[in-house]
């Protein structure tokens, strides 16, 4: 025979889980959290990026304040993921429409030995919109990659580089906002929406 009041415990469980679920939804809603297609980052000032651009001039990321920046670390001899990722950003900028002038792509080489400013310039010129290519001393590049959370290692005797292939979206205030892998930029309209969002907030 069933114990009297047997239903209390299941009812409590349902009630507590419902309160927990509603609490989570309220937490997300009250925080006015925008649903990024990329992976949101803890909002903080982006690490310094003081290198040499593809025209041989000094570059400082702070010069891009007022514009959103998509920062990507790769190398010009990369056979697959780097050109694929940079090419995947073209439709994103098309989707940005009139806002495309307020965003820029920054390509930082992980192979400064081979990627001279001239080679970088030739490489980035092949993409639309044309990224800003950055190079510099190996130590500075290594420190920048570490600061930006990009891990990498030489492969096949140094001919290639295995590296994290991620794009970091920096807002016009120079803060980290979102990170994308290649699979997350497959929807250009959604990425454009993210970029517009960080331009406004």
């Amino acid at each position: 025979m069933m114990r009297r009041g047997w239903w209390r415990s299941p009812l409590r469980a349902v009630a507590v889980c419902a309160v927990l679920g509603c609490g989570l939804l309220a937490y997300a809603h009250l925080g006015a959290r925008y649903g990024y297609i990329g992976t949101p980052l803890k909002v903080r000032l982006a690490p310094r990026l003081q290198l040499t651009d593809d025209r041989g001039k000094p570059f400082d990321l702070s010069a891009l304040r007022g514009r959103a920046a998509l920062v990507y670390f790769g190398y010009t001899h990369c056979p697959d993921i780097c050109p694929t990722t940079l090419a995947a950003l073209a439709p994103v900028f098309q989707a940005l429409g009139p806002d495309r002038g307020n965003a820029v792509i920054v390509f930082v080489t992980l192979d400064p030995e081979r990627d001279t400013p001239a080679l970088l310039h030739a490489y980035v010129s092949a993409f639309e919109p044309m990224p800003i290519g950055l190079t510099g001393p190996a130590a500075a590049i290594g420190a920048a990659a570490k600061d930006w959370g990009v891990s990498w290692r030489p492969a096949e005797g140094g001919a290639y580089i295995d590296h994290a292939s991620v794009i970091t979206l920096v807002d016009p205030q120079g803060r980290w906002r979102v990170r994308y892998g290649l699979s997350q930029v497959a929807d250009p309209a959604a990425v454009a929406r993210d970029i517009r969002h960080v331009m406004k907030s």
Partner: protein
Amino acid sequence: MRRYWPRLFVSTGTVVVIGSVAGLRDPLASMASYTASLMALNQVAPPLLLLGMRRSSRSASAIEQWLFDPWVAFCVFGAVTIAISLPGIFAPAVANAVFSAPLGLLELASGLLLWRQILPGGQTLDADWKIGAFGFLAGIPMTVVAVVWMLAPAVLYTPYLDVLCRWNISPLADQRWAGFIMLVSGAPLQLASLWLILGLRAPGLIDKQPS
């Protein structure tokens, strides 16, 4: 010496909590280290903290009666485990809500609720086999997730897809390590539960408190 054990347990549990919270700061660096931090909060810190806490002889308040109900502990633990490990099965709004929440706190709270039902002093179930079955069943979702992570042929979470993870390992290897860490973290719960189901506890070893 025994009188110092509670302090030792609480101190160790507190150190685990602090260390784990620090490990949650950079979830994108490695799924394995992130999982290790979450598991430490969920399966390591709670039993240590509970073993070190003084048992109260006063009767439970209404809120405690709700929170320390085994059904509540079971459902909250299962829901938190599934929501955090398999966010893709929920609507995007719910998944976003889960990941905007303080996950470490959720893991710690659900772990405390669960382990309170298993460790001496907080048990509300009246027989060892019931406590064992409770713990064993509660641990199943965690074990299943761990096995899926270890055996999946592809990376299951997009944020880890295109990265070279901490220690220079591939995302797939990282995911497998994460699964292994979760499996190992859940093993004490499963073993303790089996121990109780099989009736192997020595009489008088654990003094129960009336609920």
